[in-house]
């Protein structure tokens, strides 16, 4: 796992801006609906039917099915929304971060905080 750097490029950093928000509209509505316990149950019981209800595209569905957290973010999913999906599946923030970094969740958890030192004056 590479040390965090001081740049703002993907895949190191995803900026959630307007066009991304437009692209991820369906994904985020779907994922945020999982805040409701009843929706979590419905989704878990029949993921396909539930995803249909939210008009997810073929590609979005396969990203969900593959638990491709990085792909979901790249497709316009907002971390805070995608986190609800992870939680529904019994996973947490570290699983997403681990996938983003190409390690496993256990490694990720132990790597944090990933300290960086910038040329910022220390006051």
């Amino acid at each position, binding site marked *: 796992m590479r040390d965090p750097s001081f740049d703002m490029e993907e895949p190191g950093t995803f900026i959630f801006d307007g066009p991304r928000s437009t692209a991820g509209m369906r994904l985020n509505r779907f994922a945020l609906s999982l*805040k409701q316990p009843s929706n979590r149950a419905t989704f878990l019981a029949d993921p396909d039917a539930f995803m249909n209800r939210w008009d997810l595209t073929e590609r979005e569905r396969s990203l969900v099915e593959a638990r491709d957290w990085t792909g979901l973010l790249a497709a316009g999913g907002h971390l805070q929304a995608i986190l609800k999906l992870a939680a529904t599946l019994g996973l947490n923030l570290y699983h997403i*971060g681990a996938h983003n970094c190409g390690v496993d969740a256990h490694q990720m958890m132990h790597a944090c905080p990933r300290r960086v030192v910038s040329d910022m004056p220390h006051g």
Partner: protein
Amino acid sequence: MAEIIGGIGISHTPSMGMAFDAGMRDGFAPEWQPWYEGTRAVKGWLADARPDQIVVIYNDHLNHFEFDAYPTLAIGVSNSFRQADEGWGPRAFPDLPGDSDFGWFVTERLVHGGFDMTVCQDLAVDHGIYSWLPYLADTPWPAPILPIAVNMVRHPLPTSQRLWQLGNALGEAVRAYEPDQRIVVIATGGMSHQISGGRFGMANEGLDRFFLAHLQDDAARLLAIPQRELMRLGGTEAAELSIWFAMRAALSSTVREVHRFHTFPKITGCGVIVFEEPPVVTDAIAVGGR
């Protein structure tokens, strides 16, 4: 007339709240123990301050607002605010009390002052407030809360300068409130952190400490750092630091720092700072008899 007693800047994270619940039950995990201890003095300060109202500038994390209508600035005007269910059920804490009379007063001043608030008579509050509040006060919560929510989830974000202006206007509004009340202004936002992408978990303690060190007397130097630079150095979510400017700008130029603490329990830089206004007499002279 109401007076501002002081201000607090403090980080928030969901794990901070969970660590509190677990810590009160079973003792604190070693990585969270310092935070628990570091905030104890702040809790004491807040109790001594005996606030009649607490204004909190915070950010929601898609737990109440959604993208279909995401406000840049929202204000909650109600006599009660629910805890948002973030997807794991709410924690065992009561609703936040509010004071809608105070809320409407501040809202009118802000809107007439050119702040385009979304005014919310129903607002559920997430870990942006609930994660740290139990560290700073016991229940029943000590005073009504006036929540002001700032968009930090979707760009464009309000700029640091805009949040500084908001704080200025907020301070003026609060000080124009007729009742003889004691007001505390709190701003909350994670310090350095990034919770997605290859830089997940990055932690820039230098940035956090630099920020804390300059907020009292050299906020202009911090304001000059573009938000994007905060994000580059401290992670995308370090943009939340700009919320702290709204608290600082609500206070006078003569505040004194009375407490400061920083630690890195896990992903998010956890810092807290307390500013106290000098006693009113001094203050009246210092700010030119305002």
